[in-house]
């Protein structure tokens, strides 16, 4: 196919042609970036939490009064919850992976003399935490009962500087261990917190995501032998078989209510609901992005159809003449297809540059990574295909113009 005649025709419709190129370029740039954003969100929404997600329910109570017997109260509550048939494990915990609200975070150091922190980690606490969450221990051991201290004791110890009141050991995630001691076993290693307080790693879990602040390292989590009670903002985390969750949740609420009818239930939900709520915004954003992408592609495709139809109608006589001079229907069809291919190619080249520019802008303002190279060929192919589909109808109509048109009104 000779493209010179096509180019000379396009030169006579310079502005219209450039407008179409610009439209394709804008669409290409926006769609590339939007699809990239969608992939980022999907990746975020599918992050593994490392826990038995479908087996957990959460009940959080407000702290009302009588704080003096909080520890004893916690023990009674836990015992009552364990009595519920179907419950395999119960813990009082402060935070769960992928939930909004409070989370305990701290900078840690590998050397007490260090000025800057090595990593920002989240701190999980609560008795029976690992077995309730269902996280897999890959090295070392879980905490021994005698290693636990209550949160109040630990906080008081921090103020007085009394090291005996503080926990001595901790468990870290594999991801954190790899970050802190790449290629080595984390067991027995020391980390430092605050004013050079040392803690020893006794166990490593495969996965355990942090509640929020995911940008600081999704799995930079630590687990501490610190027990909690309701008045410290902890919630009951109950593990049971997935199909029993509804029933267990009801029984748990009833049991807690029976122990003290005056307590306010702040939260009662399955872990799945909690995770669903945490990613609600990402889900909405994904929906919007996909919707806009589709709308853009449709508008662009319809624009191509519209313009091509105009051009076909405008060139009816020329087409007739070409047909009369021996051009086949296929020639005419290919002419319009090639024309569209040329316009689309120009648009795509321009669009790639624009896509890169938009990506740079997003990287600066929204902490987004660089657009992977794969998006460029895929985006180009997509627009080529859409262009060809859009132009096919008008091109067929052009090919159907009979040669006899050439003899009329010349």
């Amino acid at each position: 196919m000779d493209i010179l005649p096509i180019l000379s025709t396009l030169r006579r419709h310079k502005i219209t042609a450039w407008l179409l190129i610009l439209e394709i370029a804008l669409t290409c740039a926006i769609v590339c970036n939007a699809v990239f954003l969608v992939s980022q969100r999907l990746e975020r929404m599918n992050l593994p939490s490392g826990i038995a997600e479908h087996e957990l329910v959460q009940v959080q109570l407000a702290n009302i009064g009588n704080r003096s017997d909080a520890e004893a109260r916690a023990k009674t509550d836990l015992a009552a919850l364990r009595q519920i048939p179907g419950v395999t494990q119960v813990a009082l915990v402060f935070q769960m992976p992928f939930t909004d609200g409070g989370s305990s975070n701290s900078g840690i150091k590998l050397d007490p003399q260090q000025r800057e922190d090595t990593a920002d980690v989240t701190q999980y606490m609560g008795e029976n935490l690992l077995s309730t969450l269902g996280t897999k221990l890959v090295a070392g051991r879980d905490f021994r009962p005698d290693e636990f201290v209550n949160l109040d004791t630990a906080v008081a110890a921090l103020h007085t500087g009394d090291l005996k009141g503080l926990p001595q050991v901790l468990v870290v995630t594999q991801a954190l261990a790899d970050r802190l001691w790449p290629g080595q076993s984390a067991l027995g290693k020391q980390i430092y917190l605050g004013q050079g307080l040392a803690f020893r790693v006794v166990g490593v879990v495969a996965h355990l995501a942090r509640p929020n602040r995911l940008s600081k390292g999704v799995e930079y989590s630590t687990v501490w032998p610190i027990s909690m009670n309701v008045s410290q903002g902890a919630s009951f985390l109950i593990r049971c078989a997935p199909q029993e969750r509804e029933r267990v949740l009801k029984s748990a609420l009833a049991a807690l209510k029976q122990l003290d009818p005056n307590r306010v239930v702040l939260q009662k939900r399955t872990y799945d609901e909690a995770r669903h709520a945490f990613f609600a915004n990402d889900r909405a954003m994904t929906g919007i992005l996909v919707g806009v992408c589709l709308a853009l592609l449709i508008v662009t495709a319809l624009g191509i159809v519209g313009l091509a139809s105009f051009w076909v109608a405008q060139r009816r006589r020329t087409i007739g003449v070409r047909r009369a001079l021996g051009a086949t229907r296929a020639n005419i069809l290919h002419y319009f297809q090639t024309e569209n291919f040329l316009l689309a190619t120009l648009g795509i080249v321009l669009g790639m540059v624009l896509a890169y520019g938009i990506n740079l802008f997003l990287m600066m303002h929204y902490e987004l990574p660089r657009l992977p190279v794969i998006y460029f060929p895929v985006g180009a192919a997509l627009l080529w295909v859409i262009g060809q589909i859009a132009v096919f109808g008008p091109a067929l109509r052009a090919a159907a113009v009979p040669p006899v048109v050439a003899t009329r009104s010349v």
Partner: protein
Amino acid sequence: MFGYYLDLALRSLRRNQILTALMVLAIGLGIGASMTMMTVLHVMSADPIPDRSGQLFYPHLDPTPLDRRKNALAPDPTDNMTWPDAMALLAAHRGTRQAAMSGGNLVAHPEKVSANPFTIDGRYTTADFFAMFRLRFVAGHAWTATDDTARSRVVVLSEALSRTLFGTDDSAGRMVQLGEHTFRVIGVTAPWAPQPMFYADAAAHKFGESDQFFLPLATAVDLKLDTSGNVSSWKKFSGDLTASSVTWLQFWVQLDKPDQVAAYRRFLFDYSAQQKALGVYERPADSARLDSLRERLVTLHLVPDDLRLQSWLALGFLMVCMVNIVALLLAKFLRRSGEVSVRRALGAQRRDIFVQFGVESALIGLVGGGLGLLLAQLGLWGIRRRPDEYAQLAQMDTAMLLSTFALAVVASVLAGLLPAWRACHIAPALQLKTL
């Protein structure tokens, strides 16, 4: 003449219905998407307290030590004020009105024993709060500075809370149990919920439900009631909120005249310098500053990143739609070269041709604007169903309604300008020959 152009435009649009529908749809979609986002942004950046916003200021002091390292993750400790500083500024009484405040969260016990207790959000503050922020009372009155110093056990309830607790608006004089303590209700406020809730802590939610109770700040500190919001401490924190190394209070001051503002700024510097001389502060006097309400709203970062991104997306979409329409109109107008040439040859001027095509594109804009308005309502309905706290506010007011229409017409007239201009420059002679 205009009637004739309108008739011509209608004929032309009717002749090519699919194309007309396409153009109307494109502009409708573009306008709908961008107006949805613009309405949300408009609502979120609205003036929370009209006719007082120009007089409200937020003083900043910096009592933090020189060696405090900035932590990008932690909230800025100088965003809030320490108890001693807030009390000193209150006592100095340099503004028309001033109040210190903090968020609070308490468990309310309804009068009926059978009803379950529930948690409520409210504010611990000082006497000027009500007059400064223009709260109206449906019953009773605000507490006075005397109540503040006396640490009186009094409370002001919102109308809604009064109804829930007592079943009546007028609960003044009754007793209510909040947390572990009993307070005397001295006033009930009319519904009051500035959006955004500009006066609250940076960590607090900014849209949606507002405070349900108000307690004297000193009473709350005295009773060690639970506060909500950021508490920053740069020394060992013993739980004592009145320490000079703990920031947790918001402080607002009302300054009516520009010279009052200047004087207050000087006063802040002097106070800061004096604290440095006393050895309480380590930083220079000019670390103090006075933010206007507008500046404070900027610091609060009210518009989430996602929303900003969506607005950019909507604008990009509108741009593509516009380019689309320009291209289609251009092709359409140029195809009518013959018609234009005949009209020109019969005496029509370039200007007439330009106006004729201008009317045609404006017509598309008008219909597209109507469609855009419908689509924007649909979009806003979708946003209201989202879980975000600002979602409930996503409503179009008259101003937005009119600007949607204006935007649609302006956009399509702009889109029609280039094609119309090209069309009126068609050389009639050349075209007439080929007819």
